[in-house]
């Protein structure tokens, strides 16, 4: 990232939202474990809508189906990791790559998760999550995963989305509900504390 790009990105972190930002800038692990392609709507203190299309590698040796455990991971990356990182950066006046030197994003707990449908290679899904708790670098989110209607322009569809519609999951019935997730909890743990857990 050039200095000019960093300055622009810093301005987004300070004053904007994640729509249009490359998830690679927020999710700092390697690309094979990154399960978010795009952010389509983001209200920093309320929640987010992000999408992912499972790759051939994601479904390999698993009946061409994207695993449920990976759905939870994708949801957590889209919501907790992305939203909490976005909120933490202004507090520390930095970009996410600086946070990587101090913290490890870790699962703390997972509440009820109910799967109602499935996802295959070739599908696109959205994680739609709302923030129910954010304090001391711990975030809790509830939300749902929906399969996206083929060919839908998600940026256009969610351009006028609102906090109220997020809380009501007010989207077209053409979206197919795949999973419902509750109390997904993660925390940015200081690296020195994380290492003591070993």
């Amino acid at each position, binding site marked *: 990232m050039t200095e000019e790009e960093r300055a622009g990105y810093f301005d987004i972190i300070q004053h904007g939202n994640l729509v249009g930002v490359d998830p690679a800038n927020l999710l700092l692990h390697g690309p094979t474990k990154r399960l978010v392609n795009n952010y389509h709507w983001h209200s920093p203190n309320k929640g987010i809508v992000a999408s992912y299309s499972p790759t051939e590698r994601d479904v390999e040796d698993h009946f061409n189906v994207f695993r449920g455990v990976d759905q939870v991971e994708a949801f957590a990356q889209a919501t907790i990791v992305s939203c909490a990182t976005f909120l933490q950066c202004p*507090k520390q006046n930095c970009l996410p790559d600086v946070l990587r030197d101090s913290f490890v994003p870790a699962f*703390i*707990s997972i509440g009820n998760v109910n799967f109602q449908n499935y996802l295959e290679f070739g599908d696109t899904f959205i994680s739609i999550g709302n923030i129910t708790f954010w*304090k*001391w*670098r*711990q975030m809790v989110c509830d939300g749902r995963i929906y399969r996206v209607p083929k060919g839908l322009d998600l940026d256009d569809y969610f351009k006028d989305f609102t906090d109220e519609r997020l809380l009501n999951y007010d989207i077209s019935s053409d979206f197919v509900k795949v999973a419902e997730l509750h109390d997904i*909890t993660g*925390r940015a743990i*200081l690296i020195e*504390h994380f290492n003591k857990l070993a």
Partner: protein
Amino acid sequence: MENANERKEILDGLIEVLRTVRTIDPARLEGVTEETDFLTDMNTPSTELINIAAKVEQKFDIEFEDEDIDRMGSKVKDVIDLIIMVKERGANN
């Protein structure tokens, strides 16, 4: 002696807070001392420590910083030490 009284008052207040935590078995609150460990003695889920901290803030009218929570140990005495430290910090500001 004054310090001992203060710690006893905080311990009593803390036990009141713990009685409101759904995941803590009330039977485990009998005989709680400063050496009691939330994780090993009370089987408190690690995620619950943050909720307890939020309730402690309200109970004692204090405000923890991120770093306070990072430093907080899992024993009752650690929480009491933290409460006293944060109260003193608030008094000095």
